């Protein structure tokens, strides 16, 4: 960051500490609103400052209240979903247990989508089986992406057919091919690329996270997001 920007950032932060609203800061310093928002993200207002801003601008206050309520609602829903995962974990379903632990190791720790990336067909196939048989995910809800490093259209069709055939999924599940040029792929990855299996469903993610905690006896509040 340039020196002038640093000075400006300090000024922006100082104004926030004094309790000004983001719009006021934008007007006073001429900095882009998005930038201001990013710079202030780690700088919460005190309760009194927030109350003062709310008195000045009731519309913002309402929106803020609404946002907070939504946040709480989401959190409750995520807690409930984790609890459902824990419950299923207590049933000692073997496929469920193996799938969850595999997800702990290999899956993305993301809030809104169950998401695993691998080039090993056995792993991808097993995980899809887990999604279908243990979590009752419908085929249509699964999306797959493939990373590969060839630009050849024919190869793309072949790779697409390979994964769709392997996982026994309809055509519309295939989202796209992502080109990864110049990266060092190993031999297998060269052949069929890297496959991403994704299910966009926060409830399901939380279910798995809950189950992992129950199986392994750990407690990870960070997974509630």
């Amino acid at each position: 960051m340039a020196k002038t920007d640093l000075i400006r950032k300090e000024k922006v932060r100082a104004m926030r500490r004094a309790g000004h609203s983001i719009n006021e800061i934008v007007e006073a310093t001429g900095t882009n609103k998005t930038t201001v928002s990013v710079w202030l993200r780690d700088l919460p207002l005190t309760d009194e400052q927030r109350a003062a801003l709310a008195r000045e601008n009731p519309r913002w206050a309402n929106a803020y209240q609404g946002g907070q309520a939504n946040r709480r609602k989401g959190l409750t829903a995520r807690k409930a979903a984790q609890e459902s995962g824990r419950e299923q974990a207590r049933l000692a379903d073997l496929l469920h247990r193996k799938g969850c632990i595999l997800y702990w190791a290999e899956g993305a720790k993301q809030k809104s989508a169950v998401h695993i990336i691998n080039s090993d067909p056995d792993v991808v196939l097993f995980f899809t089986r887990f999604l279908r048989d243990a979590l009752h995910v419908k085929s249509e809800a699964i999306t797959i992406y493939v990373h590969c490093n060839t630009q050849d259209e024919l190869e793309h069709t072949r790779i697409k057919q390979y994964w769709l055939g392997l996982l026994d999924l309809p055509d519309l599940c295939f989202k796209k091919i992502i080109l990864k040029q110049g990266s060092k792929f190993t031999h297998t990855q060269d052949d069929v690329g890297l496959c991403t299996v994704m299910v966009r469903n926060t409830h399901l993610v939380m279910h798995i996270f809950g189950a992992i905690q129950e199986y392994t006896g750990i407690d990870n509040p960070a997974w509630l997001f």
Partner: protein
Amino acid sequence: MRQEGKTIPEIASTLNVAKSSVSLWVRDIRLTSEQKSVLESTKQQIERLNQASKQRHEEGMERRYISQQEGRERARQNDPLHEMGCMLYLGEGAKDPRAVVFVNSDPHMMIFFMRFLRESLKVNDLNLRLRLHCHTSDVQEHQRIKQYWLDLFNLKNDCFHKVNVLKASKTRANHLTNGVCTICVYDARLMMHIYGAIQEYIGIDKPEWFFEDSRR
């Protein structure tokens, strides 16, 4: 030199001439039967060595097969900790046939994996080796991080044999304060045990896991 009974490769390497040239130049020299028998016995020796290495290879395959069978046997006994450890290894472990290598920065996962090694596979603390990757080159900080992991695993002796310092990327958002820890157990038998168990657990067959170099 050929008249003294030297072999063609020997002559070629002492004189630094191509083997094909030597062969051409000595083609008209007849060796005595005595010299021939000496050469013949060297040849047999080489043959024997080849035979021995082949046998070693087969013995190794046999050993690995037995270890994998042990793993499969264990997998059929429905031990949850064993199963979970193996599944974790399938996702996160290194696929190096000579050693069990597990790398992660998540303390929960590392503790769990350590429990799997100790309780399920009966690994002795003395056979554990740890490695550390971190972004700082500050030696005092290294000491702190090492102690952090040792305390976490409840290890008395200093198992760390290496600290790797990596250059931090400037844009990375989640800086890892405690670095990335690696647990190694240099035991090929154990590794094959885990491989066997994984195959049994998820119902697959991976013949390439028998070989010493399965990294293609």
